[in-house]
């Protein structure tokens, strides 16, 4: 008799496929929030598996801050082509030009918080009733209590104290006009699970994740890539280092780590020995103890 149990990666995959199919069945116009980072790439891969032999029935939505790594945009466009799916771009630059948001000032200014408005506008304009994200509960303490199906009111806000209870695998996506949901199929995955899965499934990811030579500046305990958007302090010095990125966000806030890992297997080895969380290199989370929770309440990813 064969064994009738799944290993942990197969069980996580099956759970994510189940969630994606529930999203498709319960909503009219769901999209995948695609950042070009490994988590949204994995979610897209899972969507491909969930609906095979049909095409992915969702559009991909990208919130473009204008402060991108060029590699991310290239990767995004290639993937869209390969999958034959529709791409929706919400532009932070347009939100600024239309006066919907104002650019932050100062040395540590970023467009991170500005994305919230652009994202919510894009959701509203495109009549999206469910935005599927690659958020994981192990990432950050405010995310540890996130549901698979997470309700947002008609202002796009998350109320952590008023979340719907989620029992067994019964998801309640009922909502009123103007409200939307966020769905997180890989809630139960850890960073390690994501890397092991990328390795197992042989999923392509942007070159930025692999060790490469790059001009960087040491700031807030990590290597910030040099770019046209970076305002250098007098004391700061641009160096060339062999680095890679553990997460991908805006080029202005994503810190790299020194690394020699140039294959997925080596990255997985490196991650398993890490003593810092992956978001430890994200200056957007360092602003306060509840920085993530505060942004999530307003409608952040």
């Amino acid at each position, binding site marked *: 008799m064969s064994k009738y149990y799944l290993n942990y990666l197969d069980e996580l995959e099956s759970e994510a496929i189940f969630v994606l199919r529930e999203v498709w069945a319960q909503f009219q116009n769901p999209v995948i929030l695609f950042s070009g980072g490994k988590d949204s790439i994995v979610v897209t891969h899972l969507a491909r598996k969930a609906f095979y032999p049909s095409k992915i029935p969702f559009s991909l939505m990208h919130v473009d801050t204008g402060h991108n790594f060029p590699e991310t945009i290239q990767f995004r466009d290639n993937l869209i082509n390969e999958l034959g799916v529709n791409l929706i771009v919400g532009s932070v630059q347009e939100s600024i030009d239309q006066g919907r948001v104002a650019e932050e000032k100062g040395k540590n200014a970023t467009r991170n918080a500005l994305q919230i408005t652009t994202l919510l506008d894009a959701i509203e304009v495109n009549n999206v009733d469910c935005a599927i994200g690659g958020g994981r509960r192990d990432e950050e303490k405010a995310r540890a209590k996130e549901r698979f199906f997470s309700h947002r009111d008609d202002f796009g806000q998350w109320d952590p104290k008023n979340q719907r209870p989620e029992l067994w695998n*019964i998801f309640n996506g009922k909502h009123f006009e103007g409200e939307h949901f966020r769905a997180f199929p890989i809630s139960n995955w*850890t960073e390690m699970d994501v890397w092991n899965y990328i390795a197992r499934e042989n999923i392509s990811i942007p070159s930025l994740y692999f060790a490469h030579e790059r001009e960087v500046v040491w700031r807030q305990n990590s290597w910030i890539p040099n770019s046209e958007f970076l305002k250098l302090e007098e004391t700061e010095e641009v160096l060339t280092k062999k680095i890679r990125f553990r997460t991908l966000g805006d080029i202005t806030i994503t810190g790299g780590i020194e690394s020699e890992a140039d294959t997925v297997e080596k990255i997985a080895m490196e991650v398993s020995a890490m003593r810092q969380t992956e978001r430890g290199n994200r200056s957007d989370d360092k602003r306060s103890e509840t920085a993530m929770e505060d942004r999530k309440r307003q409608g952040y990813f």
Partner: protein
Amino acid sequence: MIDNNQLLRFTTAGSVDDGKSTLIGRLLYDSKSIFEDQLEAIETTSKRKGHDGVDLALFTDGLRDEREQGITIDVAYRYFTTPKRKFIIADTPGHIQYTRNMVTGASTANAAIILVDARHGVIEQTKRHSFIASLLQIPHVIVCINKMDLVDHSEEAYNKVINQFEEFSSKLLVKDIRFIPISALNGDNVVNRSENMPWYQGAPLLHTLETLHISSDINKVDARFPVQTVLRPQSEAHRDYRGYAGRVASGVLRPGDEVTVLPSGFTSQIKSIDTFNGEVEEAFAPMSVSITLEDDIDVGRGDMIVRSNNTPDTSQDIEVMLCWLHNSPAKPRAKYSIRHTSNDQKAMIKEVVYKYDINTLERQTEDKTLTMNDISKVRIRTTKPLMIDSYRENRTTGSIILVDDTTNETVAAGMIV
């Protein structure tokens, strides 16, 4: 991590006083799952609050309100991995007003950890937690008798708690109960075997979690396949493909099996069981697959494919153990939406048979109200038949939720008797 490692989901119920947060902190810390930046953040907060040393309990506090009040309001999920297994902890608060959170955390758990303070023995809270574990049919219960350091690591104190526990637990339906004497604060018998309790011959907690036999907890007898959605690619390569997508709830399905589609009752044979990676020879819980049938019959979301020689009950009248989850009480004879697997119907609560006093576990028949955290036996009538199994036999086809259509909120969760 080795490829055939399994996933174990367990729940921990308890309050700060039991040392629950310390125990979780200890498991994560000793299994090297706490990162340096997380530890630094906790150290900073510990100092600011004037605590001596690092308060590992802070690691399990999440939302701002909880950090301010020093309590866990909601279910928080934690993750750690050892070379043997991946673990998901559903960390829930233990006080009576959070019964609904305990029920939520318990609904997906393979195992429950129940903490007992060795000095106080079995108290009402212990009984409540055990009752919920039994009600939600968690297959394995591990009773950790904590703070053994405060009773001189005495075997007598440990045995006393076991006797107390066994006295009341004979009424419960738990298949597997184990007892472990621990000190979460000092790490005795959590990850490492205690040198202070040589009289204890059993395994430490982590080893127990790593070796619990969970493969046989899944129902492999009753083949149940709730259809989530229909895949119709209508592409050149798959012009006539019509696959029923879903996740196997229980049992084993194979191509060639004689199946019945419920509620219509049409019969056919399984033609193929498909995945992105190709056809498979058999599908079992909790695999997500797509099934094609030999005959062109009408199948859609909410239908259930079952083996023809083993079908669930079909009924409009169901008895459930209902946990009320919402702060507004049940409205008498009001209609609710009922969700059962992928099926969505309307339902009415016809009768409250009895309500449990969650502290004494006695049945009350006078009070017919359903308010938040109440656990009651009720009779429900649905507008159309549901395809049901008892929760004891099948956690997926034996569970329901109720949704209030005026607010869209999930207001209750039920286990079919």
